């Protein structure tokens, strides 16, 4: 073991991504896909800054990533941050980018989906979702977009959801928040395309995370690790919109084609 740590860390080869261009920021990293992304990036020799609200989970993540990062020359730093504190973001963003020595990739993975009852119209709950899923996304992607546009380089990944494809009975505002995110990311992509900056929208189906725990009728369930692999693959191939796993694309297609008067009668 000691010999392994003494050898010079070797970052794995990644086509088109030299070791000095591996600096990433993951917002919403304490669990689920965010955490899996941090682990994968650390294993690829990235300097990663992981942000989340819950500091214990973040610490645990940092520790679990330490051996991986040491082997590849990567590095994981963590920061406790609540994305609804948008006023703090410009200064925090600058601090992180300085610390990483630049930025090549930002992933917005923060998201909440509280259970909403069939007859429930709870404005507070709904506004919370909008604040975390949408407002937080805008507040983090905007400074990144400004930086990437001016340096003509960088990738923005937003983890949205297949739920954004249609307005469903189950959780109206969750769908709204994700639809808003989809439109925002699309607009950002169009705006930044001229500057060689890529924006990738991820629409996951069911991923085995806290969000889906206890939900009924799950299928095609994948682990966060599988999801993170697919997410980074899509981002690196400069895919605009990627369903994860890919076969959800067909579900999305069908969902979007169902006429409203039919969709209204379905229990999805």
């Amino acid at each position, binding site marked *: 073991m000691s010999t392994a740590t003494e050898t010079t860390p070797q970052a794995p080869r990644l086509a088109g991504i030299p070791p000095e261009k591996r600096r990433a920021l993951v917002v919403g990293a304490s669990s689920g896909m965010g955490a899996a992304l941090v682990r994968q990036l650390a294993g690829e020799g990235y300097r990663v800054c992981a942000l989340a609200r819950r500091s214990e989970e973040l610490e645990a993540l940092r520790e679990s990533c330490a051996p991986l990062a040491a082997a590849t020359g990567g590095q994981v730093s963590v920061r406790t941050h609540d994305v609804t504190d948008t006023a703090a973001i410009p200064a925090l963003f600058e601090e992180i980018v300085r610390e990483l020595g630049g930025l090549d990739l930002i992933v917005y993975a923060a998201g909440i989906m509280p259970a909403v009852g069939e007859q429930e119209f709870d404005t507070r709950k709904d506004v919370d979702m909008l604040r975390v899923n949408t407002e937080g996304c805008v507040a983090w992607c905007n400074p990144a977009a400004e*930086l990437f546009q*001016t340096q003509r380089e960088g990738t923005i990944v937003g983890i949205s959801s297949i739920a954004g494809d249609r307005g469903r009975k189950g959780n109206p505002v969750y769908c709204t928040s994700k639809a808003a995110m989809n439109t925002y990311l699309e607009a950002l992509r169009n705006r930044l395309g001229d500057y060689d900056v890529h924006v990738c929208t991820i629409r996951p189906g069911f991923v085995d995370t806290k969000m889906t725990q206890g939900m009924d009728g799950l299928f095609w369930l994948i682990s966060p690790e599988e999801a993170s692999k697919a997410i980074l693959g899509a981002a690196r191939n400069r895919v605009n919109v990627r369903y994860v796993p890919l076969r959800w694309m067909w579900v999305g297609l069908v969902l979007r084609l169902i006429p409203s008067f039919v969709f209204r009668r379905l229990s999805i």
Partner: protein
Amino acid sequence: MAEGSVPGEVLAQRRSYEFVEAWGMAAGAHSRVLRPRNVEEIRASLEMARRESVPLGLRGTGNSYGDASVNGQGLVLDIRRMNRILAFDEEQGIAEVESGTTVRDLWKHILPKGYWPQVVSGTSFPTLAGAAAMNIHGKNNFAVGPIGEAIREFDIVLPNGELRTCRRDQHSDLFHAAIGGFGMLGVISRLVLQTKRVHGGYLNVHAFANHDLAEMMEYMQAHRGVADYLVGWIDCFAGGDGLGRGLVHDGRYLAPGEDPDPETTLTAAYQELGPNIFGVIPKSELWRPMRLLNNDWGLRFINTVKYWMGRLEGMGPPKPWTHAEFSFLLDYVPNWKWSYGRKHGHGLIQFQTFVPHEAAHEVYTDILRRCQRARIVPYLGVFKRHRPDPFWLTHAVDGWSFAMDFKVTPARREALWKHCHELTELVLDAGGKFYFAKDLVLRPEDVVRMYPEDKLEAFLKLKAELDPEERLQTDLWRRVFGPLRDRARAS
């Protein structure tokens, strides 16, 4: 300004962390950019820099080719939010503007009233704050001098927060030092400018194709009295007897009554061409095909075509060009600089040399020959006539300027810099000068040689007096002047 006061808080919300780049893309650095909207917020920006003990660099639209508005070691103040036109006196043509107003904002506002800015740059995007700080010149420098000559008054926020109103007869030293002082003495926040009465929406432009450099200089020298604008383009690839061949454009204002329909031609809509060529080809995409020709052979081809087209043009009668078309040739293709490559390390520098009249022909012949011998040939060469002016750090001489656009690539950067340093020697030996808005290659020893000693000393003394902490700095300042205390120690 105490911490937590309102301007500071507001400012904290209008900041960003960006890659602040030289216009030519050959230099740049990550910086926090602050965007004040008024004098209070300018003071708050200075205060923020002081609190963090970092220098503050001043920037407008970032149109200086080199590192004049880049500050890799601190904060950047972006003046663009202060862009209101405060007043325009239609009787006398006097404009009062906030300094983040661009040349473009200004002409669009005043042309329908029958005025045109007395001095404009080859692009309309610079802010007037930047234009004043760099003391820009136009194609009419030989006739009316740089923009400083058109400035009647300005407000400047000193590094200690004090606001001074400067005129030729009030704080005269600061007036003549801050114009052309490349943002090292304070933040210019308001300007009062004299503009020029025009009697039509266009200029009569005579074209003259010259066989060599001497012919170009002869033409321009002979027409100094009659032309309002004179600008020469040189095909830098042409050698032998055709060394310095090119085209001169000689623009003349219309006399009253000469334009049959000034009501129409003076409108902004008439001045600018549409976004498409032949109605279909979007100009915004032109840089992409231009990239294919952005190499020695491509430019040799383009220059040859341009020259022969110019010969044809020169045989015809003078043509009407609108003011905007004639003045802002560089804006014709949006983002044309991207044809030089967009990856880091690629881009262009402009090396603009100013040489006194007597030595000019010899020096420029030598420069063109050396470029061709070294196979580092400018892709664009622009030739102009100048006259001296009273500003302390002026770049103008009673002579000529030759601006050369060189392509920068990582592989050739070092050789290019060496080449430029060789040319710098020739220019300085002839008593010539350089222009900070274009520069990325000068060294401290070059700057010492190019200014009269008393002017340079006076400027540095004023800097030390107004900005003892050297709060205002840019990469340019650090490159050519270095920290003031080191200079003091050396002398």
